[in-house]
């Protein structure tokens, strides 16, 4: 085994670093000026083939051969310099790949470039109040207008991330009420800037409620042209299953977890608890799982680079991360002790707030519960591991 990326990659790293150093000089720019500078930087990065590598040139991508190592090197070098990477979000991660696989030429032309340049921000319209994990139980209705030119949408969607900023939505609506559960659904794109759509932020247990939280959407005769339907009518469920390919493998989540664990150790030190044998033992126990996650993500990354199937472990990463999050939360809560009785600056709710000291861990302590959003998600994960990973018989819950 060898955790170095190899000479070719290091040579490539030189190029990337050189590019970033010469092009990412935001200096004192602010506001609109900075925005324009970022835009220009991204364009240059695309020309170099550093961003949107899986997206054809004609739609604004750089159309590069898939290469997870290069992709990782790019992430590392851009990250090192805090240079802007792909805009990310649902648009780039879900809308674009779906359109590339199943969209019409017109749709690709219409949406992809605007999306990767950040003009269009996409909300996901899958979950509904009644659906939870059972995403196929879509109730939001879609009906063709009398002249057959547009879809009329009525119903409600929930748990839409970035909902307050979203300009567009990709959604599942029930268009064939009488068809079997999975066959009466159509996949639509929707412009959110129209009457007949109201959105409401969902306040979370953390109190968080601002721009970056989840939203609820209410549709009252909202409209979208039939041309914005992706895939066949009634086949929307299968369109939504379009899995994401192309350089998805990354060591990102492991790096995030690693630095979170480092912060946990720092917290123990800050609270003068690092010499407590119980704390040391729990830290080491948690780190055993943190490192298992880290090295497993190396393993996934390595398999992806070699184009090999890593097997069941890839089905376990999400649940593993969730469980480690719970363990970190429990230890963090014991470490902050009394400090946890006051909310940190920035938490939702009333009145003057305490300083953002160790109590800022409350965000993680509560936030770690957010991973179970969408009805017993962890139990769904366990089913996926058991059925797809271990080959145990299905019980009809996924």
């Amino acid at each position: 085994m060898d955790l170095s990326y190899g000479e070719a990659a290091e040579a490539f790293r030189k190029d990337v670093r050189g590019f970033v150093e010469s092009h990412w000089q935001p200096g004192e720019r602010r506001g609109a000026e900075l925005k324009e500078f970022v835009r220009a930087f991204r364009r240059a990065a695309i020309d170099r083939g550093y961003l949107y590598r899986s997206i054809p040139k004609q739609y604004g991508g750089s159309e590069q051969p898939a290469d997870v190592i290069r992709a990782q090197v790019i992430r590392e070098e851009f990250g090192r310099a805090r240079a802007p990477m792909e805009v990310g979000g649902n648009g780039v991660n879900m809308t674009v790949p779906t359109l590339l696989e199943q969209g019409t030429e017109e749709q690709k032309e219409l949406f992809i470039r605007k999306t990767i340049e950040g003009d269009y921000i996409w909300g996901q319209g899958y979950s509904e109040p009644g659906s939870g994990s059972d995403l196929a139980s879509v109730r939001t209705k879609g009906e063709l207008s009398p002249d057959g030119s547009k879809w009329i949408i009525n119903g409600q969607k929930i748990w839409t991330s970035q909902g307050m900023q979203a300009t567009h939505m990709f959604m599942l609506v029930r268009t064939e009420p009488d068809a079997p559960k999975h066959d009466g659904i159509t996949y639509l794109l929707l412009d959110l800037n129209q009457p007949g759509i109201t959105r409401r932020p969902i306040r979370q247990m953390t109190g968080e409620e601002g721009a970056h939280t989840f939203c609820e959407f209410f549709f009252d005769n909202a409209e979208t042209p039939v041309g914005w339907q992706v895939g066949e009518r009634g086949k929307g469920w299968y369109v939504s299953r379009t899995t994401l390919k192309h350089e998805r493998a990354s060591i990102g989540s492991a790096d995030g977890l690693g630095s979170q664990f480092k912060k946990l150790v720092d917290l123990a030190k800050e609270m003068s608890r690092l010499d407590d044998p119980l704390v040391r033992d729990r830290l080491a126990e948690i780190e055993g799982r943190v490192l298992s996650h880290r090295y497993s993500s190396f393993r996934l990354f390595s398999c992806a680079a070699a184009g090999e199937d890593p097997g069941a472990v890839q089905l376990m990463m999400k649940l593993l991360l969730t469980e480690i999050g719970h363990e970190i939360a429990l230890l963090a809560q014991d470490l902050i002790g009394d400090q946890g009785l006051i909310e940190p600056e920035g938490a939702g709710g009333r009145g003057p707030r305490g300083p953002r000291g160790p109590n800022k861990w409350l965000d993680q302590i509560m936030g770690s519960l957010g991973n179970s959003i969408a009805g017993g998600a962890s139990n769904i994960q366990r089913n996926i591991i058991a059925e797809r990973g271990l080959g145990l018989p299905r019980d009809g819950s996924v």
Partner: protein
Amino acid sequence: MRFHLTSEQVAIQDAVRGTLSECWGMEQLHRFADGEADFDPASWKALMALGVGGLALPEADGGAGLGLLDAALVCEVAGAAAAPGPLIGQIVGAIAVAACANSATRELLTAIASGERVVTLALDGDLVQSAHAADYYLADDGAGGLHLIEAGDGVTIESVTATDRSRPVSRVSFGTVEAHPLFTAGDPMVQRLRDAALVLIAADALGGAQHCTDLSVEYAKTREQFGQPIGKFQGLKHQLAQMALEVEPARALVWYAAYAWDAGLPDATRAAAMAKAHLCEIYTRTTRAAIAAHGGIGYTWEYGLNYWFRRSVQNRAWLGSPAQHRARAAKLAGW
């Protein structure tokens, strides 16, 4: 031999539950949680009208002549309802004043037992519940003695955003204040009062954990997924059974700790430490499990589960963490 509740004790719990259900529903909880107040006069008056302030006082002192066990049963119901107000401080304060020798101080008893005057705990640290509303602070002097400090001059109160929205704390510091000395360092009552507080915190945790379990079970019965109530899926079913398996047997642990305190058994102090440590662990795990069992809706502010989670955060840290009390219990056992 009797080790389960009497019909009178069940009746007390029903009365408190009924009263709170009238004046302290989710609507009041939401409003209070986003308000500025650290005290809710309406529910306080309603509770005190039931005589819970003096429940554990001898009849001679105008109390109900019942014990800490009965007070714990009340705190259990209050915990289940996430009731506001320094209920635990009031009960412990009344016991303290009733037990103190100073007749001038004992004159305050009637007003305290009736709840007309509000007592809150100011032990270990500077975070105090209902600090703005309190008339008296049951405070330690750092040297092991207990005093009843009067609100007013010399008491500085700094508002903060409390994590526990149902029993908001403020930062309190005492300068030159009016204080009634209660017990000097080494007086056995000092430990007894701390033990009483621990038992009542454990009882509050028990009620809260039970409430979170009940909510989760009810939700699992009604919420449908994949064409059946989610409570029919064995995975969730066993998680709910596990929650109940933690909470229900621990009920007797709280009962015993209260009974040991009332009977003055030699292991009363240790039983209080065990109950506080064990129930607060369970409360933490149960609120987390309840939110997970609910999925998305459990994570929303509106649904309200988070008030119990936040309450569990205060109960856990209040007067010492579970690990600290387990360490005390180990010491007290002579390990």
